[in-house]
């Protein structure tokens, strides 16, 4: 009886020591999970999830505060990837989420007054311009987050959906039906 107790206690102490040592020796700085989640998110920095950017949302998911189905730009595929990474159930988008096609902002230069409000709003600095100078969207950098649309006092920013060209065309998923249609 006593020997059994001693053996079990001994094993517990040894394993505890090993775990403690590993926790110190192999300690990882920062939270790698947040990085992994952030790598999946589309980096649109649009705030539709309710967090001010993709990294805060990633941190919220990692800490368990936020659900994984709050990011419309990532699409269902993004939710699947997050579900796989975190080992949780896939959850479809909530009722109020609007999935919009990818778009790029466009400033109507006739209306622009050079107020720089949109430049301050853009999370990726995709607007070139300065105070009292013409502003313009750098189309290749625009992520379509739409954060610039509301601050503009003259409503000169519109979102143009990205049109598929012959160079960006993708093969479609082959669909075939086994049954003759009635």
């Amino acid at each position, binding site marked *: 009886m006593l020997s059994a107790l001693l053996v079990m206690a001994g094993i517990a102490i040894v394993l505890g020591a090993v775990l403690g040592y590993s926790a110190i020796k192999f300690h990882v700085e920062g939270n790698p999970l947040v990085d992994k989640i952030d790598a999946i998110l589309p980096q649109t920095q649009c705030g539709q999830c309710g967090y001010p950017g993709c990294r805060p949302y990633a941190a919220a998911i990692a800490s368990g505060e936020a659900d994984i189905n709050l990011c419309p730009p990532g699409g269902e595929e993004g939710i699947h990837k997050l579900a796989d990474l975190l080992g949780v159930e896939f959850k479809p988008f909530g009722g109020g989420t609007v999935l919009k096609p990818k778009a790029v902002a466009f400033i109507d230069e006739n209306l622009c007054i050079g107020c720089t409000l949109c430049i301050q709003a853009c999370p*990726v*600095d995709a607007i070139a311009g300065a105070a009292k100078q013409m502003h313009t969207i750098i189309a290749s950098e625009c992520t379509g987050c739409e954060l610039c649309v509301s601050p503009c006092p003259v409503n000169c920013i519109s979102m143009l959906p990205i049109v*598929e060209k012959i160079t960006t065309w*993708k*093969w479609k998923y082959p669909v075939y039906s086994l049954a003759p249609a009635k």
Partner: protein
Amino acid sequence: MRTLYQFNGGIHPPENKEQSTQRGITRAPLSSRLIIPFRQHAGEAAKPVVQAGDHVLKGQLIGMPCGLVSSAVHASTSGTITAIDMQPVAHPSGMPDLCATLIPDGKEEWLPHEAVDYRSSDSAELRQHLRMCGVVGLGGAVFPSDLKLRPLRGHPNKDIGTLILNGAECEPYITCDDMLMRERAAEIVQGAEMLRFMLDAGEVLIGIEDNKPQAITAMRQAVADSGLPFEVVVVPTIYPGGSAKQLIRMLTGLEVPSGKLPTEIGVQCFNVATVYSAYRALAHGEPLLSRIVTITGNVRLPQNLKVLLGTPVQDLVALGEALPDTNHYIMGGPMMGMELASTAVPLVKAGNCIIAASDKLFPPAPPALPCIRCSRCAQACPADLQPMDMFWFSQSREFDKAQQFSLFDCIECGACSYVCPSHIPLVQYFQFAKSEIRAREQDKQAADHARERHEFREYRIEREKQEKAGKLAAREQSIRQSQAAANSGIGPAIQPEIQAAIERARAQAASAEPRNTDNLTPQQRAEIAGVEARRERVRELAKSAVEHTNDHDKN
């Protein structure tokens, strides 16, 4: 006797080549309208250098190469460019592309051109010449040939370079290379010598399938006549033996490493039609303006035609006299070809064959059933892949797993779909999966880039904040310092400096005259004098008030 190697897999579909080899190559009559797309090659489209209304000569440059992987586009005949706009082209998406519409004037007036002596020119010059002549791979991949002609020797991986001429033409129905080899063997051999010179290759092998005996004889004769030490190697007829990687393996026993180019193993492979075009470009200075096209299938007169680029396919089909039950047309062969959305599309550099298809010729297959994992596809695959696994994961959109099965090593030859007993369109799934994976890669790169920009923006804002805070702190510091200096509690060393500064400021204020005091009327001067007097009085009062306060502070 050369040892031939084998590759695993391959199929033997019925060849159907005799129909179109009954007569020689005939020249197609000039069409009433040529539509020349600016994108007829892999890489970036050529940039138009002409406008609507311009008169062009035959062989005149109408599209300048743009970017590294690009080639030139020329006017196939003399005439007038009536429009540069979007026209339907032969693309699986059915989308239009930028084209130049050329109305021929019937004169076929050539732009003056001259030969290039390949032996005395620099290799880079020759490559530039070929690029400007629009010479691209005519086997179907239309890759700019100048990029494939960088010298082979000096490459760390091998000592001798091999140039392979691909005369295999393994796909059923297509016979354009066969006829070209029969009729233009001497020029092909000369072209091969030029390319060998540019590549500095040690040997030249011409691979021809054994179902082309006349072509073999013609090429052997041409090689013998030229006295060059080339070797015509007869390879067994098997599809896809004409695929570059598979042909290289058959002739040299080497496998091109996955994801790399044949130059890694010291081999370069060109289609015989490309070699012929290169010959015409170097020895005659002629840009690529036409190609041999096989018109076959459900037509009354199957034949090979020499066609100007930009000729609408409907004209070719009319020459072949398509039978009335033809219901669609295929550009390319039956294994890898593409269905044409309409016959109004122009013939491009990649168009090696037009097959008129009907239900009788290509009867419909039974409906596709689920995969029964019989692995006939894996047995047929020339790249030793597992098509049923790639299909399984492409169908369920698990692209990571599909890539684990070497999805990108698939050459999309169609042998797997050919043998599948469930008649599943396997190649379409692979094309879909590859395009999705590429699009996702691009999205990921864009997302990473956006993240970097966002992080830099946050850093920039933080930095600005800190700078501002720093400046504010510094200014407050200096204000506090100046305040203390105004009190006499400041040390004597600083006091004279401050005093001097105050004196200077006063002198400046006194000397600075208001600019608008020139040309004043006496009345205005009197007003100003009155204002000045009032100001003086106020200053006196202020000074005495300050002295009062200071006295009080001292006490």
